[in-house]
């Protein structure tokens, strides 16, 4: 279980860190640091396992039906990455606390950072591929938030968007690759997949799967030709760059290469794809790094170059190369993070990152300069620094791989050039910044940063030195278990010594060092050459062109489909439905009429049906005279409820009846604010077209109904009928389904109702509509008081109506009735008061704040469900008992009644909320006429 907590703690902590920022700037930093330490502590019980040769796998059932469990895995590779993510995270948290300015929101920064940390931990600790992919996408999202942290800056937004687009697209490709991989291996669990490498490599789908997965890994690791997003991501605050581009985000790609190394590597396709991407990235990155005048730009391209180096090592595919790759992952993380931090300090103290202006800083900040020199030496691969060790291994692998191949000089020469360029740009980072004359026109006078801002850099630089000088006593055990984790077997023998005697690798290192110094010395002509070439190959421009094209295409499609006309869209919608329906009817070949016997027609039914059809057509013909059409439509609703009565649905009849009343009142209220007549706008041709379409739709609906009604069917109703009494304790099966069997659905439905009510309330706020001054016939609006007889009568009727609703509510479990119907009856009874006595009168006597009612209803409904969960039953399981009350007799008490009460309250609350607030608008719509008598306040 502890691995789950390792991943979860940062996610929970993200919210906490954002929340505590309201108590002060530093609280967030402390909280974030505490969260990282807590995650480390959660990890600690499992740290020993990989060193004992065990792989920790923890499974928490999640969606067992889909074979998807929350599964976490800790082996040497996962441990190495988890330690890097958490350790580096701690240093970054400390550094950022000094880096961020007063106006930057600390809570947001640390919140995003912890989100990202949790996502990264999820990637490296997942056992299930799908789970891994979800965390993979989360890193894309959270890195987007981090890169765009300075939202007010255009370059930050663009850079974040670019990173999200490129890595997001890679993620989609990877999803495809993972699905293929899972299908080939028969499982999405890494343990199974890692053990079935031969099977997977022999599969015919191996190549497409490999390409898709590599697209994901290479976009994430900024490999050529997807490298262009990384330099633009430098718009992020420097702590973010230091974290994302040293130990985490971009390393996720190479982590995946390492993770799937035993499964995917060892084929020609793997070598060609991974090696060429790696080699191209290595060279291009190194070339561009040398010519960047921006301090962070130099580091960005050098990051790309080093990622290319690691990718190339994994592409070579031998176990030794993989070990070298892992080693370089560790080394690169340490020296690159410290360099980024140093760059951040320089930027912070000088106010610029332009290396043409920053010169001679040695005088101002010798201490930072020393730290930067150590880190840069490690990056250049100078002996006694950690970069040297892995770079030597890299040179050796490059030579070994090429030995005996026809172009055996190509790879060693290429990597040698990259090595020379690495030395040159490392030298430039030091020489240009700390020496090379005096600072030119700096916005600030630089000085050493605060004491604690240097601590993270010091720690990392110490690691660089310790690993570089005493590799066997420091990094060796961790490297060994990580190598076991990658290879899934005992790694071949390798030697972490500094001195191996004079061999090819050492000679190459020396040539690279000397060559690099020479390249830097002769940089001026090279700079001029690079300036002429600049802009010729611009991956960003290509990306933007593609993006622009896609956006234009999307725009064109939208403009074609969405003409901004509702009429047209409804027409398209109906026609599409007709077309699909026709295809369905024609395709089946089954007869239209089924075998079920039909019921005989009786005179009353015939009469009512004819009336219904005529009234419907009448509504249609009258629709321009809105008021009349509305009244006629009310009759239609009543007739529909008669159909429910006829065909054994008393509950539906009651519901339809009360809803009809409420609907008509609502539409009447609304019509007050709308024109009373619809103008005749449509041309005759258009009306005929609409009539034809409507006729076709009606015919389609009829045919469908007919073919359903004449076919026998098998319903699951028997289950409900059989279990209603014994299981739900109620005789009215419809009500028992609503409050018991499908109680969860009902809870959803009353939530929708509550939302609709609240939405309408929000819409009506601050809405002002002028009321009409005259009625539909042009008579001045009548300001008569409400008719006294009706007012008196409705007041008398109110208790009676409420009594009926209570009765309907209580009997609902066993006889037609229930919360929905009772709620509607109560609403109608109260609305009657508004209608008869006026909104103001009623308002003075009844609370107008209906939100608590709705809230109470939802709470009661949910609480009923939760109680059954507390008692160990599934959500909303109901219980019932029979109580014998004196005088009344046997009475049934069911927990479902409580749930129904919730339904009742929501229905009353939402219905009244809608109608009352619309009604109140009437009062606001016109000033009270001076000559209108005061409303009677007594009865």
């Amino acid at each position, binding site marked *: 279980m502890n691995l789950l907590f390792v991943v979860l703690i940062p996610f929970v902590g993200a919210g906490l860190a954002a929340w505590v920022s309201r108590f002060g700037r530093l609280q967030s930093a402390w909280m974030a640091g505490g969260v990282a330490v807590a995650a480390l502590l959660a990890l600690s019980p499992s740290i020993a396992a990989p060193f004992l040769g065990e792989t920790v796998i923890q499974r928490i059932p999640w969606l067992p039906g889909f074979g998807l469990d929350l599964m976490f895995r800790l082996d040497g590779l996962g441990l190495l990455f988890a330690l890097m993510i958490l350790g580096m995270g701690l240093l970054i948290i400390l550094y950022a606390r000094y880096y961020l300015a007063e106006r930057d929101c600390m809570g947001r920064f640390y919140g995003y950072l912890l989100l990202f940390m949790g996502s990264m931990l999820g990637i490296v600790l997942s056992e299930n591929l799908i789970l891994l992919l979800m965390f993979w996408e989360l890193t894309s999202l959270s890195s987007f938030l981090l890169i765009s942290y300075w939202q007010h800056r255009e370059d930050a937004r663009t850079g974040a968007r670019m990173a999200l687009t490129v890595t997001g697209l890679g993620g989609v490709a990877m999803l495809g690759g993972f699905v293929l991989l899972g299908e080939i291996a028969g499982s999405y669990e890494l343990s199974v997949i890692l053990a079935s490498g031969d099977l997977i490599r022999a599969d015919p789908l191996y190549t497409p799967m490999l390409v898709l997965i590599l697209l994901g890994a290479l976009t994430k690791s900024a490999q050529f030709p997807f490298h262009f997003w990384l330099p633009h991501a430098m718009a992020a605050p420097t702590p973010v760059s230091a974290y994302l581009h040293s130990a985490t985000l971009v390393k996720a790609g190479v982590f995946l290469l390492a993770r799937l190394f035993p499964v995917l590597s060892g084929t020609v396709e793997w070598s060609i794809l991974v090696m060429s991407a790696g080699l191209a990235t290595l060279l291009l990155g190194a070339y561009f790094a040398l010519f960047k005048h921006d301090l962070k730009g130099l580091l960005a391209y050098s990051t790309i170059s080093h990622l290319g180096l690691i990718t190339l090592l994994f592409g070579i595919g031998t176990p030794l190369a993989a070990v070298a790759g892992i080693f370089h992952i560790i080394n690169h993380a340490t020296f690159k993070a410290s360099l980024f931090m140093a760059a951040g300090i320089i930027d912070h103290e000088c106010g610029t990152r332009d290396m043409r202006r920053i010169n001679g800083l040695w005088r101002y900040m010798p201490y930072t300069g020393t730290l930067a020199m150590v880190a840069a030496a490690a990056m250049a691969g100078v002996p006694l620094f950690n970069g040297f060790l892995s770079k030597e291994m890299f040179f050796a692998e490059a030579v070994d791989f090429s030995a005996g191949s026809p172009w055996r000089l190509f790879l060693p020469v290429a990597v040698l050039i990259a090595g020379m360029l690495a030395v040159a740009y490392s030298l430039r980072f030091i020489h240009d910044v700390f020496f090379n004359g005096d600072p030119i026109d700096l916005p600030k006078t630089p000085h050493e940063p605060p004491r604690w801002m240097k601590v993270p850099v010091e720690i990392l630089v110490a690691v660089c030195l310790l690993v570089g000088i005493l590799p066997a006593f420091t990094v060796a055990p961790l490297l060994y278990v990580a190598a076991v984790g990658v290879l899934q077997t005992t790694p071949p023998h390798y030697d972490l010594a500094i001195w191996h005697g004079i061999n090819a690798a050492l000679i190459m290192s020396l040539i690279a060092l000397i060559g690099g110094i020479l390249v830097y010395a002769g940089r001026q002509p090279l700079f001029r050459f690079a300036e002429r070439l600049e802009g010729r190959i611009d991956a960003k421009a290509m990306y933007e062109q593609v993006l622009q094209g896609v956006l234009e295409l999307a725009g064109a499609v939208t403009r074609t489909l969405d003409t901004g006309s*509702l*009429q047209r869209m409804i027409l398209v919608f109906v026609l599409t439905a007709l077309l699909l329906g026709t295809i369905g009817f024609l395709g089946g070949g089954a007869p239209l009429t089924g075998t079920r016997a039909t*019921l005989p*027609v009786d005179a009353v039914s015939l009469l009512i*049906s004819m009336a*219904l059809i005529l009234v*419907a*057509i009448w509504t249609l013909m009258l*629709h*321009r005279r809105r008021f009349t*059409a*509305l009244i006629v*439509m009310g009759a*239609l*609703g009543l007739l*529909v409820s008669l159909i*429910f009565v006829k065909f*054994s*649905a*008393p509950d*539906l009849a009651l*519901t339809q009846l009360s*809803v009809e009343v409420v609907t008509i009142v*609502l*539409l009447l209220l*609304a*019509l007050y604010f709308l*024109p009373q*007549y*619809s*103008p005749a*706008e449509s041309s005759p041709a258009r009306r005929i077209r609409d009539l034809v*379409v*409507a*006729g076709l*739709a*009606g015919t389609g*609906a*009829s045919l469908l*109904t*007919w073919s*359903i009604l004449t076919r026998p069917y098998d319903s699951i*109703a028997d289950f409900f009928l059989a279990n209603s009494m014994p299981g739900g304790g109620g*005789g*009215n099966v*419809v009500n028992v*389904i*609503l409050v018991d069997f499908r109680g969860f659905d009902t809870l959803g*439905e009353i939530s929708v*109702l509550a939302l*609709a009510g609240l*939405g*309408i309330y929000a*819409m009506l706020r601050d*809405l002002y*509509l002028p009321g009409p001054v005259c009625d539909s016939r042009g008579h001045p609006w009548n300001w008569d008081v409400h008719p006294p007889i009706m007012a008196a009568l409705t007041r008398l009727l109110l208790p009676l109506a409420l009594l009926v609703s209570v009765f309907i509510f209580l009997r609902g479990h066993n006889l037609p009735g229930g919360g*929905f119907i009772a709620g*509607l009856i109560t609403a109608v009874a109260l609305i009657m008061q508004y209608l008869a006595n006026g909104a103001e009168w009623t308002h003075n006597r009844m609370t107008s704040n209906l939100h608590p009612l709705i809230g109470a209803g939802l709470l009661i409904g949910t609480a009923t469900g939760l109680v059954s969960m507390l008692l160990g039953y599934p959500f909303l399981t109901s219980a019932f008992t029979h109580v014998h009350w004196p005088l009344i007799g046997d009475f049934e008490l069911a927990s479902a009644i409580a749930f129904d009460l919730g339904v009742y309250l929501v229905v009353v609350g*939402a219905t009244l909320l809608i109608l009352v607030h*619309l009604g109140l608008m009437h009062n606001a719509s016109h000033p009270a006429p001076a000559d209108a008598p005061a409303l009677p306040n007594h009865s």
Partner: protein
Amino acid sequence: MEVLITLIIGVLTACGVYLALRARTFPVVLGLTLLSYAVNLFLFVTGRLTVGLPAVIAENSAGYADPLPQALVLTAIVISFAMTAFIIMLALKARAELGNDHVDGRPDPGAHS
């Protein structure tokens, strides 16, 4: 009897679709109300037609109507009310903001009120 229901659903659908294709908000709301009658009826009769056998458990009942579509339609009726209410409020809001009741919010060509 099935023929009658079939006809009713067809006519309600046709009237609803025609009104929904009108250019002013109020007829569209009426059309949608008619359509929801049709849809509710349709859902209801997928449980087939049963006369005089409500789904209330009784000792000596000869059989029961299918309670499942009834339960679905009961909530559907209430939800259609909420939907109608929401749409008519949208119509009011549109009228307040745009000054006319055309479904596309176009300025009123013929002054009709």
